[in-house]
């Protein structure tokens, strides 16, 4: 990896964006360095596999680079790149969907009941009882069991820590719809993980 100048490494996001728009490619590279981990995790969470996650990562940053002249500096670069990446990830899923993929949304979207079958307590500290790779596999399987519309909300709210309002704006959903999907996503994931982590 090439070394970036110290002044760039210490710059604020806003300054980097201005520099990048003015044609300073090192500044854009630093923006990529700052957010590539998050965007890869976004891809893994929404698409559910490494190949697609890598495509999402590359396509999102290449498109951002191309469309940088259109980027309005009164909004955050981070929000912009997340929006681009979410779109890329959902497009990937739609392409795969024709076959035997999960539907984008649940039929029970806004007023269905969530059925809870697992009521057992969990063994303490599941994260310490499994090797990292095994734990990742279990958690990935959990995410894959959710419809994509739910994964996306869960990822933005609980993994990335965006607020309900930010998530709603990004996905063009109502605040109520975000809350309803988050509730279902959390309970369904919990149900999946309980099969593995429950006591006894």
């Amino acid at each position, binding site marked *: *990896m090439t070394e970036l100048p110290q002044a760039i490494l210490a710059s604020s996001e806003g300054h980097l964006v201005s520099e990048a728009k003015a044609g300073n*490619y090192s500044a*854009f*590279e630093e923006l*990529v360095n700052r957010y*590539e*981990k998050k965007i*890869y*995790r976004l891809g*893994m*969470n929404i698409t559910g596999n*490494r190949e697609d*996650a*890598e495509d999402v*990562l*590359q396509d999102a*940053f*290449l498109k951002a*680079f*191309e469309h940088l002249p259109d980027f309005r500096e009164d909004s955050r670069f981070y929000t912009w790149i997340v929006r681009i990446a979410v779109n890329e990830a959902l497009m990937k899923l739609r392409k795969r969907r024709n076959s035997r993929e999960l539907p984008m949304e649940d039929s029970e979207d806004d007023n269905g*009941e*969530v059925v*809870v079958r*697992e*009521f*057992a*307590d*969990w063994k303490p500290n*599941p*994260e310490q009882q499994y090797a*990292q790779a095994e*734990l*990742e596999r279990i*958690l*990935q399987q*959990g*995410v894959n069991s959710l419809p994509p519309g739910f994964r996306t909300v*869960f990822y933005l709210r*609980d*993994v990335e*820590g965006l607020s*309900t309002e930010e998530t709603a704006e990004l996905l063009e959903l109502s605040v109520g719809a975000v*809350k309803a999907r*988050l*509730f279902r996503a*959390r*309970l369904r*994931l*919990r149900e999946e*993980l*309980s099969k593995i*982590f429950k006591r006894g």
Partner: protein
Amino acid sequence: MNCNKAIKEISGYLDGDLDEALKHTLEAHLTYCNHCHAVYDSTRKTIDLYCDGKLFSLPEDVHTRLHEALKRKMQEHA
């Protein structure tokens, strides 16, 4: 408050979204209902497991290919 209603409110409770009265009713239910308490506790743990930043870390080769692709793109534009 019955168990169905309690389970519906757990997500909002975790986000601090419930008004005081509902929060107290739910907390009372969670105190004596083992089932709902287990659901509450494992939902909290589920969120904790996923928000741990160590998951799905960026593989070194993926990072390298991204930066190579970016360099090519930048050269096209230069």
